């Protein structure tokens, strides 16, 4: 799980290591958020997280 500014980094590292972990991205920024904003990000991310944890391969992992 990462903020969406880190898609490129994840792709580059995945290419180099030969392993693309499933990933989900939440909207950037993170560090100046309030607790309530962080919890809202988590709730919004939940469907994607469940999908990521349960689905089988052939998914575009980005």
């Amino acid at each position, binding site marked *: *799980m*990462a*903020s969406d*500014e*880190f898609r490129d980094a994840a792709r580059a590292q995945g*290419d*180099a*290591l*030969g*392993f*693309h*972990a*499933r990933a989900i991205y*939440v909207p*950037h*920024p*993170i*560090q100046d*958020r309030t*607790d309530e904003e*962080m*919890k809202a*990000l*988590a*709730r919004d*991310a*939940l469907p994607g*997280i*469940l999908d990521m*944890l*349960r*689905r*089988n*391969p052939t998914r575009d*992992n980005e």
Partner: protein
Amino acid sequence: MSETVLLDPGSERDPVQREPRGLPADLAGRTVGLLDISKPRGDVFLDEIARLLEAQGAAIARFKKPTFTRPAPTGLRQEIAEQCDVVLEGLAD
């Protein structure tokens, strides 16, 4: 001009692509590991994710990297592999 030969300064690596392992069809009764990478604010996000996943019937096991600047220590990775069916790592920013 004669031909020029250059030596490769790089890794010369062409990694074999590995696929993630198969995942469970349902999280009920499964253990989901939550690995906190120790970036500020990540704990608040993960606390909420833990609460939401427990509501789906998953057992949650929490882990934390000593610092976000280094890869997780081998011992920690082994512990996660032993205890969990799947692991979520975050929150990178």
